[in-house]
C-alpha cells in the first residue's frame, strides 16, 4: 500500500513529509511564523513561549527550595521569599499550565483529530497567542519593577490595601492572558460543534477531543469571572473605593468567593486536557479500545459542571458558615467520582491489553499513580474537620503538586513525546526518553512526598523559616527538586537534538489509531489531501493484535 515513495531518496520513510511540502517548510521567514494562522504553527509558537515560562517558573521554585534547605531564613529575607513563591505560582499556573496542553497539543491536534483543515477562527487563534504574549510582557514588567508578593491568589484586603508591590501590573498581565484562554476555548467549542468530518459523530470522537470540549466550557464560563474580579482588585487598589475594605462596608471574603469560583474550575482547566492525553496514550500502548468510552466522555462534562459548585472548599476556615461548608464538602466528594471513573477505566483498559512500555506510556502509568494520590488527598482536605488541621500547611502544597505536576505535567510530557514524531517528523532517542521519565518520576516523588508528611506534622506554607525538627524532610524535598530540575532538562536536550539529527518518522510510528496518524509527519498546511470520512469508532484496535506492523497508511502524493 505504500504508494509513490519519492524516488532517488534513499532514506525515504513511508509517510514522512520532511522532503515534501509540509506546514514547516511551506513558508519561510520570521513573519511567516509571527503572522501565521495555521493552527499547527500557532501551536509551535505556544510551545516555545510556554517552555520559556516553564523554566522561569522553575527558577523561582529553585529559589524557594534553596531557602528551605535550612530552618533559618538565611538565604533571602521574608519579603523576597514571598515574592519567590508568588511569582512561581503565577508563572506556573497562568502562564504555563493553563495554556500548556490545550494551546500546544490541543491547537495542533484538535482540528486534525476531527478531520478539519484548521480551527473555525484561525485569526482569532493567532490573536489569542498575542494576548498571551502581551500578558506575559506586562507580567515581566511587573517582575522588573520588583515583582509581587501577595501569593498567586491575590487575597484581599492584603492585595488591595497593604501590599507595596506591583499588584496592579501583575494582575493586568493575568487579565490579558485570560483572554487568550477564553478565545482558545471559544475556538475549540465552535470547531468541535461545526467542523467534524462526515461520519464523525459525538460518540466517535477521540476522548482527547471530549476532554478539550469540557475544558473549553470552563474556560468560557470561568475565566471572565476571574477577569472582572482582578479588575476590581486593581480599581480598588488605585481608588480605595471600599469594595473589599470592611471599614468602608466592603467584604474581603467576596473576593475569595469570586476568585475560587474561577480558580477551582481552573484546576480542571489544568487537569482535564491531561486526562484527554491519558486516554490516547493508554489505548495506543495497550492496543485496545478504551474501557467504558461513554463513561470517560461524559465524566469530563460532569467534572466541568460539578467543578463549578465546589469552590467553597477553599474557604472552610475563612468565616464561611458551617452549613455552607458542609454543602461544599459534600459536593467536593461528589466531584471526585467522575475523576475516579476515569482512573478505573484506564486501569481496566490495561487489563489483558498488550501493554508496551515506550516512554509516553511510562508517563501515562506515572500519571495514574500520582493523580490518584493527588485526588485522594484532595478528599482528605475536602473533609471539613481534617481541613482545619491541614489548611495552609505543606499538605495542601503536596496535594496540588501531585495533581498539577504529577498529573498534568506528566500528561503533557507524555503527550509531547507521543506526538513529537507527528509534530516534527523526527523520532527522539527512546533510551534517553526512558531515562528521563524514570528520573522525573523519582525526582518528583522525592520532592513532594516529604511535603505530605511535613505538612501533616504542622509545617505551614508560605514562610521562609521553620522549626528545626522539619529540616530532614525539607532537605529531602530540596534534593528531590534538584533531581527533578535536571530530569526536566534532559528532554529539552534530546528533543532539540532530534530536530536536527533524529531519525525520520513514519506517518504512524506507534501503530496507533486516530486520524492524525493517517497523514504524513509533519502534516501539510491543510492537514488532509482529501476530506476524510470516518466509518468506525475511536480506538478500533483489533484486540490482541499488534497493529504496529500493519500496512502503513498511504503517503501523501509528492508535490512539485
Amino acid at each position, binding site marked *: 500500500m505504500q504508494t509513490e515513495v519519492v524516488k532517488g531518496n534513499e532514506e525515504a520513510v513511508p509517510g514522512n513529509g520532511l522532503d515534501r511540502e509540509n506546514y514547516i517548510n511551506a513558508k519561510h521567514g520570521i513573519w511567516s511564523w509571527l503572522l501565521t494562522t495555521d493552527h499547527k504553527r500557532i501551536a509551535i509558537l505556544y510551545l516555545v513561549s510556554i517552555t520559556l515560562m516553564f523554566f522561569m517558573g522553575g527558577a523561582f521554585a529553585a529559589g524557594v527550595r534553596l531557602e528551605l534547605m535550612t530552618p533559618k531564613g538565611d538565604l533571602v529575607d521574608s519579603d523576597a521569599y514571598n515574592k519567590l513563591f508568588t511569582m512561581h505560582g503565577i508563572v506556573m499556573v497562568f502562564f504555563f499550565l493553563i495554556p500548556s496542553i490545550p494551546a500546544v497539543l490541543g491547537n495542533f491536534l484538535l482540528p486534525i483529530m476531527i478531520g478539519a483543515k484548521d480551527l473555525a477562527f484561525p485569526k482569532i487563534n493567532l490573536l489569542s497567542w498575542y494576548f498571551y504574549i502581551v500578558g506575559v510582557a506586562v507580567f515581566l514588567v511587573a517582575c522588573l519593577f520588583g515583582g509581587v508578593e501577595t501569593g498567586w491568589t491575590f487575597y484581599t484586603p492584603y492585595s488591595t490595601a497593604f501590599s507595596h508591590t506591583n499588584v496592579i501590573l501583575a494582575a493586568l498581565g493575568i487579565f490579558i492572558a485570560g483572554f487568550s484562554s477564553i478565545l482558545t476555548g471559544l475556538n475549540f467549542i465552535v*470547531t468541535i460543534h461545526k467542523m467534524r468530518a462526515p461520519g464523525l459523530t459525538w460518540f466517535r470522537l477521540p476522548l482527547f477531543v471530549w476532554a478539550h470540549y469540557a475544558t473549553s466550557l470552563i474556560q468560557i464560563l470561568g*475565566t*471572565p*469571572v476571574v477577569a472582572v474580579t482582578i479588575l476590581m482588585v486593581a480599581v480598588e487598589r488605585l481608588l480605595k473605593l471600599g469594595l473589599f475594605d470592611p471599614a468602608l462596608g466592603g467584604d474581603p471574603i467576596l473576593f475569595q468567593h*469570586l476568585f475560587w469560583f474561577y480558580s477551582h474550575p481552573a484546576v480542571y482547566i489544568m487537569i482535564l486536557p491531561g486526562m484527554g492525553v491519558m486516554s490516547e496514550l493508554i489505548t495506543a500502548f495497550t492496543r485496545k479500545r478504551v474501557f467504558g468510552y461513554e463513561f470517560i466522555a461524559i465524566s469530563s462534562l460532569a467534572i466541568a459542571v460539578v467543578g463549578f459548585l465546589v469552590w467553597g472548599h477553599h474557604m472552610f476556615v475563612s468565616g464561611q458558615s458551617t452549613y455552607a461548608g458542609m454543602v461544599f464538602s459534600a459536593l467536593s466528594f461528589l466531584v471526585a467520582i467522575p475523576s475516579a471513573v476515569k482512573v478505573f477505566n484506564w486501569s481496566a483498559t490495561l487489563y489483558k491489553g498488550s501493554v508496551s512500555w515506550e516512554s509516553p506510556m511510562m508517563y501515562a502509568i506515572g500519571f495514574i499513580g500520582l493523580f490518584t494520590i493527588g485526588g485522594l488527598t484532595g478528599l482528605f482536605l475536602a473533609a471539613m474537620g481534617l481541613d482545619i488541621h491541614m489548611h495552609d500547611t505543606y499538605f495542601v502544597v503536596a496535594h496540588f503538586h501531585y495533581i498539577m505536576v504529577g498529573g498534568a505535567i506528566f500528561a503533557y510530557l507524555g503527550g509531547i513525546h507521543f506526538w513529537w514524531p507527528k509534530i516534527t517528523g523526527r523520532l527522539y532517542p527512546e533510551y534517553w526518553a526512558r531515562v528521563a521519565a524514570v528520573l522525573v518520576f523519582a525526582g518528583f516523588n522525592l520532592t513532594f512526598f516529604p511535603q505530605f508528611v511535613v505538612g501533616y506534622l504542622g509545617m505551614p506554607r508560605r514562610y521562609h523559616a521553620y522549626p528545626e525538627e522539619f529540616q530532614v524532610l525539607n532537605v529531602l524535598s530540596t534534593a528531590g527538586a534538584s533531581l527533578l530540575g535536571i530530569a526536566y532538562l534532559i528532554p529539552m536536550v534530546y528533543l532539540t537534538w532530534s530536530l536536527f539529527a533524529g531519525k525520520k518518522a513514519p506517518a504512524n510510528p506507534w501503530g496507533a489509531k486516530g486520524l492524525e496518524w493517517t497523514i504524513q509527519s509533519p502534516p501539510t498546511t*491543510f492537514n488532509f489531501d482529501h476530506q476524510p470520512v470516518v466509518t468506525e469508532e475511536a480506538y478500533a484496535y483489533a484486540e490482541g493484535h499488534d497493529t504496529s506492523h500493519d500496512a502503513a497508511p498511504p503517503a501523501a502524493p509528492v508535490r512539485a
Partner: protein
Amino acid sequence: MSSSTHHPAYVHHFENLSEQKEAATFGMWVFIAQEVLFFGGLFAAYAIYRNLHPEAFYFGSHHLNIPLGAANTAVLIFSSLTMALAVHAAALGKRQQIVGWLLATVFLGSVFLGVKVVEYKEKFDHHLVPGASFQAGQLGMAEHIADPVLRGKAERASQIYFSLYFSMTGLHALHMIIGVPLILWIAARAWLGQFGPEYHSPVEIIGLYWHFVDIIWIFLFPLLYLIPKPH
C-alpha cells in the same frame, strides 16, 4: 463542489458557505455566554452589597437621574429595533436599507452615550464620583437616618454603590463604544455590496452583539435607578 464554495466571502477551511455561517453565528453566541459571566461577577457583587447595605443603595439610587435613564432605555430599545431592521434588510439583500438602518443604530447609540456623558458629569459636579473627592454628605441621609452610627455606616457604604454604578454602566458603555465603530465598518462593507441573501453573517453577528449590549442595560436600569425604600 456546491456553488456556495465560489462565493467571494467563503474561506477555504470550511466545508462550504453554510458551515462557515453557522460557525460564525455560533461563535458569537459562545462569546455572549462569556460576556454574561464577565458582567456576572459585577452582578454578584451588586447582589451581595445591596443586601448588606440597603440604605446606601436606596439613597445612592435616588441621586441618579431617572428621567434621563428612562429616556436612554427607550433610545436603546429603539436602536435594537433599527438593528433588527438592518438584519432583515440584509436577508433581503437591500443594500441601501442595510446601510440606512445601521447608520440609524449608530445614531441612537451615540445619543445614548451622549446622555451618559451628561449623567456622569452631573455626578462629578455633585461629588458623587468615588475616590478622593467623594462626599457622602451630598446624599442627604442626615434628615432620614437619625442614628449616627447607622448613618455613618450607610454613608461610607454609599461609595460602594457608586463604584458599582460607574463600573457596571461604564463597562456597558465601553461595549457600546466598541460596538459603534464595528457597526460603521459593517455598514461600509454593506455599502460596497458585500452582503446579500446568500451571505450576510457579519450583519447578523453584529446584530446579536448589539442586542446583547441592549439586554444588559435592560437589567442595569431597574437595578441601579429604581431601588425602592427598604423597610
